[in-house]
């Protein structure tokens, strides 16, 4: 590669990295505030991983059960996260989610309806009332398409008003960002390249919003697409930001397990919300054995009561299939390890006995389609085989809850899955779509306020040169390691040693092996040229995934307790001391460093929303006596 480097220069007020739900919502907000916005997506516009969200968006509109409200949603979210959530994020989220859903309706979204014509809401794990606004089982697609079309609508208006549809919002599809640029300690723009042709792009911008989603591709079995390589997590670390609680990964209890090529693909929680039951190879409905003490008063301990709940929710406790995801995933894992699993190493999920063929096809159409076409299973007649799959990272960029500003990096913002804190140690289903709407909007507004109050910074030529050298590097090497095989090795390490159940010895092993890959990645070489070259693309993704894996392993080894999406075989219970601590990850240029930081404690008004006896299960005596701030 000796040809001259081609580079485009762009200038915007705000650059949004990621065109999933959070990124698009941020862009809409920043544009509405009058700013010029570039949206960068790694794929084509409208293909983001948000389309895979199936079940719905959680918002306490109270359309189906009028007892619902933000306080109930807030409590459920904190419980689901085992009280490690940043209380302020959970509060904002619960309060603002209904407005974010209603606003989508004004932009053209068509949610399923109740008999009165309001937005219908469905049951989901950990949510006390039917709370998830949905469109069959393709809610994420509806969100993406609605916001994509909202952006087109804004561009059409800009064309009318300013003569150019792209004068205020422009989408740059199939661009990889390799670096967030900084000058004098502040964000000055981003650098990257077009995947299509390898042409480099430099965006000058005062504010950058990270909305890059998750990290699932670090793991072998995952529901995430190729894009989930932790780009935003790594970009934030390299720009001097922090990650919070990277040990918490959500293994969704129900991924497909057979055939091998679809292993990990998500089976929506709505299957359980609509009445699906989990059984082992003895036909036993095993979840009754796995109700933890903290949830005993909310979940039925016998089949008769669990079944009655579907018709009378006020007088019966919920079926244990609807426990928070971490509990169900661990239970399935235990059943399979004890030899009570299905032929292909999962358990059975059956909705055919409770619902008719017609209802299943109406409420779960894409599940029916997915199993019928990919596994040859007709879910209206037979059970699905399911098992845990790496689905979501609760950990992420440390942000200010109100503005989504990344701590320590002026001009950097983060929203959606890439941001940490909101979900604590475990996210409830349905809370991710609401999260990305609430905090996507807040990040857009936060970035707009920041831009209006700060001075533009010019990107220096030395910063550009630096970024260019990094992009050229893999082509300059020859005979080095193949990025595809290194990626596979990394996935084996995380799957085997940093997976759903962890121990100290395995984590030590993982940290050593990740360090070894870190050395070898410096030799990665790629074949071909810059024209749409997946091997070249993977070499950058790999670097990001390594930083994520290192952050996760190093955070996991210090947290000596089990909570939510972090289970230590050698420390199997929750520890009240660890409830008050966040693990904060930073990067010193060579390796990831983890330190502990106190979790902000709830103010009195939020503290008092809980029954003190419930809080006693999580908090130390000292904390409960103090009773909030």
């Amino acid at each position: 590669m000796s040809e001259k480097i081609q580079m485009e220069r762009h200038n915007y007020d705000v650059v949004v990295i990621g065109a999933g739900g959070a990124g698009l919502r941020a862009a809409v907000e920043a544009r509405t505030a009058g700013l010029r916005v570039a949206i960068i997506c790694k794929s084509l516009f409208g293909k983001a991983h948000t389309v895979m969200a199936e079940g719905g968006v959680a918002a306490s509109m109270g359309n189906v059960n009028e007892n619902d409200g933000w306080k109930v949603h807030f409590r459920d979210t904190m419980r689901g996260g085992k009280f490690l959530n940043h209380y302020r994020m959970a509060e904002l989220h619960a309060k603002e989610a209904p407005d974010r859903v209603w606003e989508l309706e004004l932009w053209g979204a068509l949610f399923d309806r109740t008999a009165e014509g309001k937005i219908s809401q469905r049951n989901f794990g950990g949510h006390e009332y039917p709370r998830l606004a949905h469109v069959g089982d393709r809610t994420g697609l509806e969100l993406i398409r609605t916001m994509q079309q909202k952006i087109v609508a804004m561009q059409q208006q800009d064309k009318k008003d300013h003569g150019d549809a792209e004068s205020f919002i422009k989408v740059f599809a199939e661009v990889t960002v390799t670096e967030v640029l900084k000058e004098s300690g502040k964000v000055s723009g981003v650098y990257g390249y077009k995947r299509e042709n390898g042409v480099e792009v430099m965006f000058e911008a005062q504010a950058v919003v990270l909305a890059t989603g998750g990290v699932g591709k670090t793991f072998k079995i995952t529901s995430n697409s190729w894009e989930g390589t932790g780009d935003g997590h790594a970009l934030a670390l390299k720009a001097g930001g922090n990650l919070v609680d990277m040990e918490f990964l959500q293994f969704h209890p129900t991924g497909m397990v057979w055939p091998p090529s679809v292993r990990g693909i998500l089976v929506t929680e709505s299957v359980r919300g609509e009445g699906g039951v989990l059984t082992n190879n003895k036909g036993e409905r095993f979840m009754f054995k796995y109700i933890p003490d903290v949830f005993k008063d909310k979940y039925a301990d016998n089949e008769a009561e669990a079944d009655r709940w579907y018709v009378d929710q006020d007088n019966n406790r919920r079926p244990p299939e609807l426990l928070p995801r971490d509990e169900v995933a661990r239970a399935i894992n235990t059943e399979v390890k004890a030899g009570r699993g299905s032929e292909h190493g999962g358990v059975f999920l059956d909705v055919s006995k409770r619902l008719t063929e017609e209802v299943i096809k109406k409420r779960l159409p894409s599940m029916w389609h997915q199993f019928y076409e990919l596994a040859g299973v007709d879910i209206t007649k037979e059970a699905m085989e399911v098992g845990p799959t790496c689905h979501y990272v609760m950990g992420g960029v440390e942000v200010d809850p109100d503005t989504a500003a990344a701590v320590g990096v002026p001009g950097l913002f983060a929203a959606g899955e890439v941001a940490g804190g909101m979900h604590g140690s475990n996210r409830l289903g349905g809370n991710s779509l609401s999260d990305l709407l609430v905090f996507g909007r807040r990040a857009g507004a936060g970035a707009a306020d920041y831009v209006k109050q700060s001075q533009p910074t010019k990107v220096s030529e030395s910063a550009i040169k630096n970024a260019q050298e990094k992009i050229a590097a893999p082509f300059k090497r020859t005979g080095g390691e193949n990025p595809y095989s290194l990626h596979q090795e990394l996935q084996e390490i995380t799957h085997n040693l940093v997976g759903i159940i962890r121990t100290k010895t395995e984590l030590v092993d993982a940290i050593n092996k990740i360090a070894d890959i870190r050395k070898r990645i410096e030799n990665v070489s790629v074949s071909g040229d810059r024209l749409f070259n997946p091997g070249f693309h993977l070499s950058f993704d790999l670097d990001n995934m390594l930083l994520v894996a290192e952050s996760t392993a190093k955070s996991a080894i210090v947290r000596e307790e089990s909570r939510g999406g972090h289970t230590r075989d050698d420390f199997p219970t929750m520890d009240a001391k660890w409830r008050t601590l966040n693990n904060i990850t930073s990067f010193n240029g060579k390796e990831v460093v983890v330190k502990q930081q106190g979790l902000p404690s709830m103010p009195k008004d939020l503290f008092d929303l809980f029954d003190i006896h419930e809080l006693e299960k999580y908090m130390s005596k000292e904390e409960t006596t103090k009773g909030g701030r």
Partner: protein
Amino acid sequence: MAKNIKLRIWRGDANTGKLEDVSVEANEGEVVLDVIHRVQATQMGDLAVRWNCKAGKCGSCSMEINGKPRLACMTQVANFADDETITITPLRAFPVIKDLVTDVSFNYKKAMEVESFSPPADLKPGAARMQQIDVERSQEFRKCIECFLCQDTCHVIRDHEENKKSFAGPRFFIRIAELDMHPLDMLKNRKQKAQEEHGLGMCNITKCCTEVCPEHIRITDNAIIPMKERVVDIKYDPVRWLGSKIRKREGIV
């Protein structure tokens, strides 16, 4: 149950290209995208292919498999005979960028030309009341994953580059129909515009688009034909024709 299968993959760029034969391992239950990935990881590190969700929900891995527009993630290898060579080529209606990746920007341009959703100006958040039966018609079209297979197969543009200027294609006919049937949309002349500005009249309902739709949207029966019928009604009913002329300025047809 691994076996070796034969693939013939189109490789090249905007200027030149050719079909290349490869032999690759295939395992039970695998789809065409799996074997393409294996080719990529073991034999052709720079083979270009788009994909995302691998579950038929994002519409990225559109290509032509034995000449048929399909999603590679939803095409089982087992559907082909053991000794059959599977030929994989890029979408024919769009310009090639590299290998199996095409420039689909045509579709994004057309999306920009469809007038957006127009709700009543005084509609308050949370105030909308719609019946399930009324939203379902538009919901069918909102299932669209924008794989653009319907656009690729439509013979109006597949081999007629010159028609692209005046023809939006099936994907955008269902978008217009979706808005036209949307209970809250206030624009009244969408069908007319479909006919006059988006080339609805050029479609001669061969239903090829419906056949390739991976979401099984009944593009022709539920969107195109109803719009065509209404447009014809309006055009050939002299009273309505006159009315439409008189009231056109107000946009009420």
